[in-house]
C-alpha cells in the first residue's frame, strides 16, 4: 500500500524534498520501522533520520508516538519537535 510521506524543517532540508510516495514492505509495522527503512533511501535520508530521538510524527495529520502502527495511513509526516509561536 502506497503512503505519502511528508517532511518538515531540517528533516525536509536534509532529505531534499517535502514529500514522497513510498510503498513499504510488509514487515514495516510502526512509524519507527518506517523511519528505519526510509533511512536507506539516500544519503540525505540517512542524515535526516539518523537520530530517532530528535524526530516526531503524525499519521493522517494526527500527532502520534513513534511506536504507533502505520495501519491504513494515507499520509505520514516526519519532523523535528515543533518550535512555533
Amino acid at each position, binding site marked *: 500500500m502506497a503512503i505519502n510521506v511528508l517532511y*518538515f524543517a531540517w528533516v525536509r532540508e536534509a532529505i531534499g524534498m517535502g514529500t514522497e510516495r513510498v510503498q513499504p514492505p510488509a514487515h514495516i509495522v510502526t512509524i519507527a520501522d518506517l523511519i528505519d527503512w526510509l533511512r536507506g533511501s539516500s544519503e540525505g535520508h540517512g542524515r535526516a533520520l539518523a537520530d530517532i530521538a530528535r524526530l516526531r510524527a*503524525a499519521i493522517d*495529520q494526527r500527532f502520534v508516538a513513534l511506536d504507533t502502527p502505520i495501519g491504513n495511513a494515507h499520509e505520514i*509526516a516526519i*519532523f523535528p519537535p*515543533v*518550535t*512555533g*509561536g
Partner: protein
Amino acid sequence: MIRIVVSPAPIDLAAELARVEVPGAGGVASFTGLVRADDGIATLELEHYPGATEATLEALAQVACVRWGLLAASIVHRVGPMAPGERVVFVGTAAVHRAAALDACAFLIDRLKTDAPFWKREVKVDGRAHWVDARASDEDAAARWR
C-alpha cells in the same frame, strides 16, 4: 467565536483585537509574539504543516472556549519569512470576567508552542542560518495546564 488564521500576511493587530471585542465581553486578553531584534537575527522563517496546523489550533481554541467559557478565541499565526520586530503570532481571548480571558490566553500561547506544527529557522545578519531547537521551558509551560 473562534478565529484561526495561518498566513504569510502581516498581522493587523488593531483589526484582530477589534474582532475579539465581542458584545457581552467584560475582559479581553491578548498575547503578541514578536521577532526579537536583539540576537543578530536578520530574518525569521516559519514553516508549518498545512492542514494539521489549523486543525491543531482549532482544537486548542475549542478546549479553551469550553474550559473558560470564552465568548471569543482568536489565534493568528504568521508563516514564511519575517523581519525583527514583526509579529509572529497573535492570541486573543474574550470572556465575561477577566480571569477567564487572561488564563485562557496564557493557556493558548503555551500549548501552541508545544502542540502546533510550526518550525522556526533563523537567518543571522552574517548569513548563517539554523533551525531553532525546541525548548524544555516550553514543555514546562505547557505542562502546567494539564
